[in-house]
């Protein structure tokens, strides 16, 4: 029984991180229909920013996690910069595919740029403790507070984002842009501003995700983005990419499946199983668990 509880807790721990990252993927995809491959690397950028600003935060008498504020600012800037320098010109000229390839190139660029910066380098770094350690016990198993915080943050962000896109003026503009850019322009929406705002929000989410990731798994390295991003991205697709609650659901599904595979099937095949589930789900429901199949316009 304790194995079962432990497995569930581990699943939630992994899932909470995946969910938080998947929210960022979904946010951008929902608006401009672009898989932002560089999103994982924004997390890496956020992570290093946190590592470098924690001493500053501590010197100012703030808790360590306050460094996330700096990370949010840096990530938002990097996100907006990426959109302006790389994505926008391609979106104007190229096809969907060239946008996707630009995203891959951007990811490659950020990873290698980080490696070329002497203060970062190719060696991994280990983050400080972000939150007070501890947890409550279920039977013989400890449920860490950090995991609880991550789950709560994911839920809060999910609700806030959902309300934002549904209820506010800017949110409505975003949904409008995602449906039809030309029509949105005619309605007086500044499409470029809206997309930049989307990137800013999505990248800021990456900074928060970086904080929660490092609080639980304190190692950070330059190619972290690809490794972590792929799983999170699978989560977003599984839940139905572009759908905000779907990302969170997908994250937890992937986390739990991974954990249960490790405990009960084969620990070394967990990656294969995660992708197998993705493939099966997509074949049964091509738009993801919460996605709706939309007929094609001719």
């Amino acid at each position: 029984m304790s194995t079962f509880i432990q497995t569930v807790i581990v699943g939630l721990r992994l899932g909470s991180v995946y969910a938080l990252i998947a929210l960022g993927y979904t946010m951008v995809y929902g608006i401009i229909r672009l898989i932002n491959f560089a999103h994982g690397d924004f997390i890496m950028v956020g992570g290093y920013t946190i590592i470098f600003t924690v001493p500053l935060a501590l010197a100012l008498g703030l808790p360590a996690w306050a460094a996330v504020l700096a990370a949010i600012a840096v990530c938002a800037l990097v996100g907006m910069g990426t959109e302006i320098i790389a994505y926008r010109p391609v979106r104007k000229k190229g096809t969907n595919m060239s946008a996707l390839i630009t995203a891959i190139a951007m990811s490659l660029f950020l990873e290698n740029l980080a490696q070329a910066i002497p203060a970062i380098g190719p060696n991994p770094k280990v983050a400080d403790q972000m939150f007070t350690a501890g947890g409550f016990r279920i039977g013989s198993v400890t449920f860490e507070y950090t995991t609880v915080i991550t789950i709560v943050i994911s839920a809060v962000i999910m609700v806030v984002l959902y309300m934002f896109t549904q209820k506010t003026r800017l949110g409505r503009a975003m949904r409008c842009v995602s449906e039809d850019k030309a029509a949105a322009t005619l309605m007086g929406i500044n499409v470029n501003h809206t997309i930049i705002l989307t990137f800013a929000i999505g990248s800021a989410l990456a900074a928060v995700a970086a904080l929660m990731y490092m609080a639980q798994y304190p190692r950070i390295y330059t190619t972290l983005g690809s490794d972590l991003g792929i799983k999170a991205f699978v989560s977003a697709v599984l839940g139905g990419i572009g759908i905000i609650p779907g990302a969170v659901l997908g994250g937890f599904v992937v986390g739990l499946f991974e954990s249960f595979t490790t405990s009960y099937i084969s620990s070394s095949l967990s990656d294969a199983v995660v992708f197998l589930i993705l493939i099966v789900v997509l074949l049964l429901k091509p738009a993801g668990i919460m996605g709706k199949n939309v007929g094609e316009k001719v």
Partner: protein
Amino acid sequence: MKKTKLLSLLLALCMVLSLAACGGSSSGSSAPAESSGDAAPAASGDTLKIGVISPNTGNLAAYGTGIHTGAELAVEEINAAGGILGQQVELVELDDRADPTECLNAFNNLVSQGIGLIIGSATSGATSAITGPANEEEVVIIAPTATADSITTEDDYIFRVCYADSAQGAIAAAYAKTAGYDKVGIVYCAGDVYSSGLKDSFSAACAEQGIEVVATESSAALTTTEYTNQFTAMVNAGLDFVYAPYYYDVIGPYVIPQARAAGYDGVIMGADGYDTTPDYVREADAPAFNNIYWTNHYFAGDTSEKVTSFVAAYKDKFGSEPSAFGATGYDSVYVYKAAIEAAGSTDPAAVRDALADTSTVYECVSGTFSFDESGTPVKGAPVITFKDNGDGTIGMELVDVVEASDLA
């Protein structure tokens, strides 16, 4: 009509190939044209060139940095003392990014420059791509840290200054036996050759020693972040000794803190991958680092004169404590020096013959050893333990030195 173009592509291909041909040859322009290519002359003028292949960029850059800085230190010392056989030594350093293809390219490049003595590479995967060709080209290779058993067994020209995986597994099993554990578990990474190689050799050694491997769990890749479930399984199996051959950056932040959090309080034993772990631990996790043992190539805290002077010189030159990679890179150069002086020549074949003499004893930072028939050192290994200093840092202590004679 469009079909006419079809074969023209073949032409394009040929053109392109010949283009590559021009390019390829230009890079090897420094090769002596008269070289037969087989037994390449080693010396040119008054300098002796030794090639170093190591992963200097990419994820394993830390290994490469260790190896080539160690080798540079040794060369500096040797040159200051008058060189080898009166010749100054020059290192030709190439990067293989821990990739077999790149390693083979670097090897071919060095051989085409007429270099017949090579140090490299860090990983078994990359090194195994050059062992066969080295034998064919009659070029000597000393591998600083390639530990896969088969690296030296198949070919005559390949030597190394580290022990093989099987020896490391055997040392761990011997340690478990002396410490009184007859039931053990293994947690390893199935996607990594180093880790799965050590797992294989450890379980083989356990079978020999009469130790029962009760539970074996694994992780898919080195990027895996969760090890809690694996150690819960170890707790459920009632084990007090787990062999977990991982690298420092997985052990420090993930494996050990999570194992302790999962309620596993027994011994965790590892291998040379644990080197430099204390740099990768959160302060808050330090209390978890007790009851952890690992085998290494050398112990930096060793008080012997050889080690202390090496550590001091390295710190002086590079500003940091040398890793085991630094030590083996340093040793590789000195082994060459001893062999060349014994052979009285820098000719690769003569150096090989000198190295193949199993009675020669080499006194190195990473132990005093002689080579066995295959070219792997016969040496013991220090067993080191981590110790929580109580102030958020982790110390190391030498527990035992398992001698090669203990293993037979």
